[in-house]
């Protein structure tokens, strides 16, 4: 295995991990406020087509990211109104959002199939990325660095700021938060919107960086992995980062196993490598959940609608 091979491997891993990291961070904040939004896959697809379309029409990647974030947030409002405004069941509504997002992105994408767009490349000067270390550190799209920075931002927000404390309080005990005078519904709306925006950016990563073309179902289930990742990480941003890269690693292993034909990776059939991330999630979930009481670190009100007494 040459150094070139390892570098290509590492770069692919980073590419595979970033979208789930972005969407995972969004879902983490949403869930911390007590809302379980299973519509991540749908929101990612909406962000993907929004980002793609904007890039195709304007050629401005920053605008594309912005539009993707706004679209993800907008579509998450459907979920928010139904679950927070009308107390609809969160699991079913999230699923409906996924189906809707898949269908709507397909419909809008019809007009863009076959178009190629420029990719959202690194803004670092090319000179930095010529040698091996340079490539591993500096050759990525700004979205990769954004994702990593957001891990720190989310952690700091949740643990070191007052609004973050309020959000966590709402997630742990909505009735008490309400009685102190905080708007539980308002906080949750904001959390859902943030989740939608991040999912939108995560989805936009696919066409803007990985595959500069539109096709239906571009995200291939990454949204679900992001949801699993949040539980996997025990709702902690730092572990989320590690988990996202772990998944990216496993996914890349499958691909490189297929390409190698022979070699150490053919010890298992390539489909076994493909199933690894999901099996690993299940195993880790079992280990985490078993070692603590019901659900581990989960916010206490997760998934339950807010019903103020009287």
């Amino acid at each position, binding site marked *: 295995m040459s150094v070139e091979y390892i570098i290509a491997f590492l770069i692919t891993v980073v590419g595979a991990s970033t979208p789930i990291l972005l969407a995972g961070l969004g879902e983490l904040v949403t869930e911390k406020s007590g809302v379980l939004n299973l519509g991540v896959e749908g929101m990612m697809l909406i962000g993907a087509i929004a980002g793609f379309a904007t890039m195709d029409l304007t050629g401005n990647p920053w605008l594309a990211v912005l539009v993707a974030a706004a679209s993800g947030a907008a579509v998450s409002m459907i979920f928010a109104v139904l679950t927070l405004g009308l107390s609809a069941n969160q699991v079913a509504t999230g699923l409906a959002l996924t189906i809707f997002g898949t269908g709507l992105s397909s419909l809008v994408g019809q007009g863009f199939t076959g178009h190629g767009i420029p990719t959202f490349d690194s803004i670092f000067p090319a000179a930095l990325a010529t040698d091996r270390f340079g490539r591993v550190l500096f050759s990525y799209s700004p979205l990769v660095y954004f994702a990593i920075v957001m891990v720190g931002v989310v952690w700091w927000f949740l643990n070191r700021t007052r609004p973050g404390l309020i959000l966590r309080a709402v997630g742990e005990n909505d009735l008490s938060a309400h009685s102190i005078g905080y708007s539980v519904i308002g906080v949750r709306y904001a959390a859902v919107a943030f989740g939608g925006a991040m999912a939108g950016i995560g989805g936009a990563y696919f066409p803007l960086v990985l595959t500069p073309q539109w*096709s239906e179902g571009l995200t291939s289930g990454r949204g679900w992995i992001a949801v699993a990742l949040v539980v996997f990480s025990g709702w902690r941003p730092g572990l989320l980062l590690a988990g996202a890269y772990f998944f990216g690693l496993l996914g890349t292993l499958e691909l490189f196993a297929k390409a190698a034909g022979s070699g150490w990776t053919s010890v298992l059939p390539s489909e076994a490598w493909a199933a690894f991330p999901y099996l690993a999630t299940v195993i880790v979930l079992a280990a985490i959940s078993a070692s603590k009481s019901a659900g581990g670190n989960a916010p206490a009100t997760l998934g339950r609608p807010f019903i103020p007494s009287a």
Partner: protein
Amino acid sequence: MIRLNRRTFIAGAGAAATLPLLASRASAADPLKVGYIYVGPINDGGWNTAHEAGRQQMLKALGDKVTSIYVENVAEGPDSERVMRDLVNQGCKLIYATSVGYNDFALNVAKAFPDVKVEMCTGWNHADNLSNYNIRFHQARSIFGTMAAMLSKTGVGGYLATQAVPEVVSGINSFTIAARKVNPNWKTKVIWINTWYDPAKEADAARALIAQGADVLTQHTDSPAAVQVCEKAGIPTFGQGADQSAFGPTMCKSSSLDLWGSFYTTRTQAVLDGSWKPDDTYWGFKEGALDIAPIVNVPADVKAAAEKVKAGWLDGSYNVYAGPIKAQDGTEKAPAGGALDDGAILGMDWLAEGVDGPLPS
């Protein structure tokens, strides 16, 4: 109020069965209705785009005598049978099923509607009203293999393959055998991604092949995703189905062009004048069903070599499947002086010497 019971079901089915007869009585005066089912979107920039272009050509050539409907994104499986039945019930007397996964269901439809003609692309079943059609894609592959060996520095090529059906296997073999004529130590690395159209997967697979040391790439998938990856990575590549150089202006040296238009025109005309007979149509450069996009951005000697191969196909002096041909495991598939016949090519289930890695199994 309609009572839903067994009697009404059978009555309904019986009524439905007479619909084709009604339709056929009408069609003597009306234009021939031709149905197409596509496995992906018509603007995928590859396989389906080419079929749609062929359909448009046929419509232009035959004018008022035909009308046509098409359905995109028809999943390979029983859904395709339902869609084909819908087309028949809407009056189609000729159906073109354009992907290999429709094979068994096309047969079902042919059996259920004996007065409808079904043309199955890259299929292998036979019936009185079922015909198969195919293009000698391997002719174009041999040109690309020749060019690849001349352009490559590492002597390793990458092949983005889909499923291990004969059409794909033959493409890989032809590419490899032709390359080996230029460089006897040529190796082709293959990734089987088991899907015809999934740009994200195709891009990932292309990157993986490049990481494995391939410095020339080609593909059998329907989208130009691999071409885009190669353009970014500075790797020469060849597109498939339609001219994909728009996605790789410097790196896409040529593309295979599936030209279904003349086939569709000819066969539809045969139905119109009653001379249609089931066949195993297998056209290539000579019949105008296949061509390659203009060769760009290569040294003069590479271009000359490519043109020589193409001319060889046209005048019969070049045949990539002329013996001696050896499989990966060393068995001789064609002796020196002999050649593989059409049957062997259409049923190819072995990989040639020089291909790295086994058939998926």
